[in-house]
Structures are given as C-alpha cells and as structure tokens.
C-alpha cells in the first residue's frame, strides 16, 4: 500500500459518490412523475481496493406492470360500457331530479311512464267521452309517448355514433403510440448494446404500453436484447420491432339500420363476432359491445314497443263492404304509412312513430276521432266505430284501453320474451336497461378500484420513496465528508513527508 494508492481510492470514491448523488437526484426530481421507475447505482469494490459504480439499474416489476395493464384494460372497457348505459338510462329515469312534480313528466320521460299517462288520459276520456278537452288531453299524452320513443331512439343513435367515433379515436391513439414505440424501442436496444443508461426510455416505453392497454388488452414480453414484443390479449401481434397498423373506418351517424365497421390489425379483424382473434378487453371492446350489442338491443326493444303500439291502435274496417278493407294505422302511425307494419318491419319505427295528424288538434286534426274511430280515413266513414255518432260513445276507447293490456307478440331477439302486453313489455324494457346500468356501474367501480390497487402496488414496488432517497443522500454526504477528511489527512501526511525530506 502506498499513499498514492490511497489517493486513487479516494478519487474513485469521489467518482462513485458523484454517480450515486446524480442517481438520487434523478430519483428525487422524478418522485412525482407517473410511471417513473426508481434507479439504483450498483457499487462494486474494484481490484485496487477502490470503489466504482458497476451499473445503474432500473427497478422494474414485470408481474405488477402486467397486472396494472390488465386492470387498466378491464377498467377502460367497463367504464366505456357504463358511460354509454348511463346515457341511455337517463332517458328512462324517474328520479326526482329527472321528473317534474306534476303533469306529463311527473314519472319521468320513459316510454313506460308515458304509456301509463296515455292509459290514464284514455281512462278519463272514456268516463267523459263528450268532453272534447279530455280527448285533446289523451291526444297530447299520445304525442308525448311518441316523442318519448323518438327521444329514446335518438339517444341510442347518439350513443352508438359516439361509440363509433370513440373507437376511431382509440385506434388513432394506439397507432400513434405504436409508432412512438418503434423509435423508443430501437433506442433502448442500441443503448443496452452500448451500455448506456436507458432507464428513462424504458419508463417511456412502459407508459406507451399503458396507453395502448387503455384501448386494447395487451400482453407483452421483453426479448433478450431488451426489445419489446407486444400482442393483443387475443394473440395478434401489435409490435415486434416494427409496429402493426390498426385500421378502422368510422361510419358517421349510426341509425337503427347502421351496423358499424370492425377494427383490423394488418387486415385481421380484432373486434366483432366474426373475428377469430377478438380482443378480450380494453376501451375498444367496451365501445364495440356498446355499439353492436347493448344499444342495438335497446333500440330493438323501442322498435318493438313502437311497432306494437301502432298495431294496438290500428283501425279495422267497420263498413259492410266486401271484400273488407285492410286494417290501417290509427292514433299512432309513421309519416306516409299506408298500412300497418308487420312484425318483420319494426326496425327503426321508434325513430319515426308519430301521432296521426288527423287526430291532432295542433295540426288541424279532430281529437274526437279518437273516440269515434276513423283516424286513418276521416272522410270515408269506413273506419268509424261510432255508428250512431253518439256524443258519449266510449266503446272504442274501452277497446283501445284493453288492447294495452292484451298480450301481443314481440320479437324474442330483443331479449324480453315473445309474448306480453304492451304495458308489461315497456316496464320490462325499462327494468332491463336500469338493471344493465346498475351492473355496469358496479362493474366499472369494481374494475376502477382494482386498477387503483394495481397502480398502488406497482408504484410502491418501483416508485421513489423520498425519505429513503434522503437517507441515502445523508449516508453519501457522510461518506463524502469522510473521503474529504481522508484526502486532507493523506495530503498532510504527504506534506509532512515532503517537508521531512
């Protein structure tokens, strides 16, 4: 051992302390940066008895990161479904916030509530058939019901259109993230090969993967050269050195007949029932489910209600003409309709259903046609039920009222059975929607708390603890002081030696 070797060792100590401090400084300044992984300087004794920083490693926890990505995908999926359903459910709400204390909206604006209002108005009219005002109220109630169905169907269109746009946005985000991933990944591979610090780049890469996981469920693996391979959770390659391209054509306005396009990765469909490699989670899955399954099902229910409403209020031939005339739409119809729709043609009726202008006083119609019949053809008299033209005839009104309670046939595809009364069907439809909303909301908050937990676990495992860094800083400070002391001591020894000579 020589004094000069002592100087070397002290020198190496200063170098190490410098690197360690800079690592700590980096950790402290990034303590609040989301996605930042703590770095540690690994210190080794060198062969001269000195010290050196062998490497700066980034604390990573692949298992927790994967868990967070999975939780993020699931939470984003449920959140998309829940947001859409909440928008739909708002149209049938009968909470005090959605209703007025009296009048037509006292039970909210759901088709079921409005159907109830129509039945109530018809009941009043049948007890006072000579009262024109009662007839006008009944027609007004019918109009509100038709508008409620229109509004429900419009909301379905809005929800589906928005989901379609959101899918387009999601696809754009994923594509942009995949492009960025390419350069970052290349830099990491280069950096690792040339032994550079790539911690920051790795953080960025993880953040990008997290962003992609928000939209599409992913699984990732790190290759021996440090590069990343990214797949959808269904196994379609998203990134392997070069990014795949997601393609999606937005449909614009998605009406009751619009189907919406699927998302493709390099030509392979990853959403929709026809896809063999359909992704399992992520916002895109939630949005697709909303656009293609949930909202269309509600639309189908509204269409069934509208179609059967037209059927229930249809007018049959009352004349003795042979052959008999066909049944025609009565109180409820669609613009330009010349016949009662058949059950196979119910699609989109909820958007179109209106009260027949011939019975609507605000459009120059006559509300008493509701009592007498002949709404479909006021001039011919062939569809008039009130043959004696009696002012207090209520036979037709009672017929209409009972038709609301009579079992009718509904398309089972709408998911609410095939036979029930209009009133019951509207009730079941409302319950179906609120039940779906309730479940989606519960799922969304459950998945969101799972995501928070996963995020906390990852943050605790790889994040920075300021106190730990400061403590380490203190240690380094002491060791710096000691090294400095050592240096002055060694120097004074050297000077004593020199002056002694």
């Amino acid at each position, binding site marked *: 051992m020589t004094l000069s070797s002592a100087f070397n060792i002290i020198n190496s100590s200063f170098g190490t302390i410098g690197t360690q401090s800079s690592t700590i400084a980096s950790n402290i300044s990034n303590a609040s*940066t989301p996605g930042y992984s703590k770095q540690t300087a690994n210190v080794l004794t060198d062969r001269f008895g000195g010290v050196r920083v062998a490497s700066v490693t980034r604390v990573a926890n692949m298992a927790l990161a994967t868990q967070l990505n999975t939780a993020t995908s699931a939470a984003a999926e449920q959140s998309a479904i829940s947001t859409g359903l909440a928008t739909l459910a708002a149209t049938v709400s009968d909470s005090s916030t959605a209703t007025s204390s009296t009048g037509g909206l006292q039970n909210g604006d759901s088709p079921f509530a409005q159907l109830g209002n129509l039945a109530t108005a018809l*009941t009043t009219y049948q*007890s006072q058939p000579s009262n024109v005002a009662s007839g006008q109220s009944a027609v007004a109630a019918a109009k509100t019901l038709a508008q409620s169905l229109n509004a429900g169907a419009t909301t379905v269109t809005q929800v589906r259109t928005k989901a379609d746009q959101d899918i387009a946005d999601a696809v754009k985000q994923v594509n942009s993230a995949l492009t960025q991933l390419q350069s970052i990944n290349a830099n990491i591979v280069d950096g690792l090969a040339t032994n550079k610090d790539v911690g920051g780049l790795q953080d960025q890469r993880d953040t990008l993967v997290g962003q992609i996981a928000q939209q599409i469920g992913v699984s990732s693996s790190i290759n021996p050269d440090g590069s990343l391979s990214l797949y959808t959770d269904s196994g379609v390659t998203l990134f392997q050195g070069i990014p795949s391209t997601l393609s999606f054509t937005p449909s614009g306005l998605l009406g009751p007949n619009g189907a919406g396009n699927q998302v493709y990765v390099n030509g392979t469909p990853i959403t929709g029932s026809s896809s063999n490699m359909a992704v399992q989670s992520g916002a895109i899955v939630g949005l697709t489910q909303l656009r293609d399954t949930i909202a269309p099902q509600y639309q189908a229910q509204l269409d069934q209600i509208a179609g059967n409403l037209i059927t229930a209020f249809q007018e049959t031939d009352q004349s003795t003409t042979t052959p008999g005339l066909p049944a025609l739409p009565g109180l409820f119809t669609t613009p330009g309709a010349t016949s009662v729709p058949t059950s196979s043609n119910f699609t989109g009726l909820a958007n179109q259903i209106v009260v027949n202008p011939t019975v609507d006083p605000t459009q120059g119609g006559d509300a008493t046609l509701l009592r007498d019949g002949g709404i479909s053809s006021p001039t011919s008299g062939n569809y008039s039920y009130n043959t004696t033209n009696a002012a207090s005839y209520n036979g037709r009104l009672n017929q209409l009222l009972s038709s609301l309670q009579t079992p009718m046939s509904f398309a089972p595809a709408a998911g609410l059975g095939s036979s029930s009364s209009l009133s019951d069907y509207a009730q079941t439809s409302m319950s179906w929607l609120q039940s779906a909303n309730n479940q989606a909301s519960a799922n969304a908050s459950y998945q969101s708390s799972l995501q928070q937990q996963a995020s906390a676990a990852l943050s605790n495992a790889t994040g920075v603890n*300021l106190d730990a860094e400061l403590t380490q800083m203190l240690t380094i400070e002491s060791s710096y002081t000691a090294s400095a002391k050592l240096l002055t001591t060694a120097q004074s020894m050297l000077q004593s030696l020199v002056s002694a000579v």
Partner: protein
Amino acid sequence: MAISTVSTAYLNSALLPSVRQAQSQLATLETESTTGQYADLGLQLGGQNGYELSLRTQDDLLQTLTTNNNFSDNKLTTTQTTLDSIRTAAQATVTNLVPLTSASTASSVMQTYGQTNLAQLISSTNTTAGTDYIFGGENTGTPPLNDYYATPTSPAKTAIDNAFQTFFGFGVSSPQVATITSSQMQSFLSGPFAAQFQGSNWTSNWSNASSVNTTATVAPGQTVQTSTNANITGIQNLAQGYAMLSEFGGIGLGVAAQQTLASTAVSVINHASSSILDTQSQLGLAQNQITQANDYISSQSTMLQTTLGKIDDVNAAQIATELTTLTTQLQSSYQLTAQISKLNLAQYLPTA
C-alpha cells in the same frame, strides 16, 4: 418479514381516490336529504325500477279514477234528483185523478193535468249536466225528447191524431166523440194509442235518446252504468198517461168513456211510477258501486304509497348519520393529507 416500501407519490396521493369518492357521495347525500328519495332511483333499484314505476303509474291511474268518479257521481245524482221530481209529479197526478175515475160529470181539468205534466216531463227529461243531456243514453249531444207541443205540429201529436181518426172514423174535434163507449175507449187506449209509445213509433216520433247507457270505469276492471235514458218504460208510460189526458181529457167524451180514460191513466201512471223507482234503484246501485270503488281506491292508494315509500325513500336518520360520518371522514382525510405532506425527512434536515 416482508420488507414493505411505499412510494412517496403513492403516499401523497393515497387519500385522493377516497376524498374524490367521499365528495361525490356527499353530493348524492345532499340531494337525498333534500328530496327524501334516492338520488338516482334507476341506479339504486336496477331491475326493480320498472316495478317501482308501475306502482307509481298505478297510483296515478287511481287518483285520476277518483276525479272521474266525482263526475260520474255528480251525473248520477242529478239523474236521481230529476227522476225523484218526475215521480213526485206522477204521484200527485194520480192523487188528483183517482176521484175523477168515478166522477159523474166529465171534467176538462184532466186535460190541464195532462198538458202541464207532459210539458214538465219533457223539460225534466231534457235536463243537462254540463253539456250532456243526462237522459240521452250514449247520445248525450241531442235533447232526448222532442217538444210535443211544438209548432208546426209535432210528429208525435200528428201520429196520435191519425190513430184516433183511423180507429173511430172521426177526428177528436168531431161532436161524435160523445158517442164513444167505455169499451171502445178502452180498446183504443190499450191498442193503437199505447202502440204510439213503443218500438219504432217511440224512437221516431218521441225520443232521440240512445237505448245504450253511458258507462265509465270506476275502478281498475270495474265498469258501471252512469246514466239511464229516455227510452225506459217509466218515461214511455208517463208520456202515454199524460198524453191521453192531454189529448182526450177535454174533447167532450161521455161520462163513462171519461171515467175509463181517468182509470186507464191512473193505472198507466202508477205503473210508470213503480218502473221509475226500479230505474232509480238501479242507478242507486251504481252510485253505491262508485262509493265502494272510491273506498277501494283510497285504501289501495294508501297501500301503494306505503310500498313506494319503502322502495323510493331514504331513511332520513340514516342519511343524517351518513352525512356526519362522511363529513368527519373528509375532514380527517384533509388533515391526514396535510400531515403526510409535512412528514418529509427534508423538513427535519438541518439547512447547510
């Protein structure tokens, strides 16, 4: 022992989600404590929401039925009052007629009885409630009975005059009427004359009413008759009795024929009175049904309200407690956040 670490970022933000949640819960609870109901019924009830709303619409229907029943009841009461006055007049006429069935002189006072009462009967039968002619049956838009004494001569009067002419071979103003025997008069009154008040003669000459009575639903699934009509036997017979007095009471019949006229009128009017009483008891039954329906509705509505209260309403005491708990929780969250942010080694290190 597992070495557990916590990152500063997490430590500082750990309370954030719970604060956020508490704040949104606070808003919900505020709404609930103001309205007394769940803030979002749909979200709270889920699949039960349809059932809940069905109870509400059911209750609305019941409230509407109560209002409607008042109208029906009012109409029935007016009908009853009118029938009462018709019956009272009929009984008074009978009291006045009975002595005349054995009177030795033919008195033209019978004609006055007939004219006054028939006019009165027609006007009573044409009573309205609101705009509705209550004796019109379904046809409430037209006066049920035509004016018998109208100018030009009403079809009903013409038809009676013609029947007389046909039966006797001379008109009512002919002096030959004095020769009509008691049995001739009897067979005319119970034959061609009585036929004027039945079937198509009645509906074409006398009445515009519909024989179909108005009905109304008074409770779910329960329909009652809410009117009677001018085509009931009681009114037909009364018109018949009064018309025979009015037409033949002052034409100068012989004593025997005049006595037969009086006794036939008494019997017809008496029959009419009891028939009207029958109608009245039928209507009374309907009124009774309405009262019962109202009782049923009120108890049913109370039950529905109770059930709805159980489904919709929040427990006020529970809300108050939750509000207090939540406020305390929020306060301690804020305090903790402030304290945790102070818990930092840097605060305790001596400044160089």
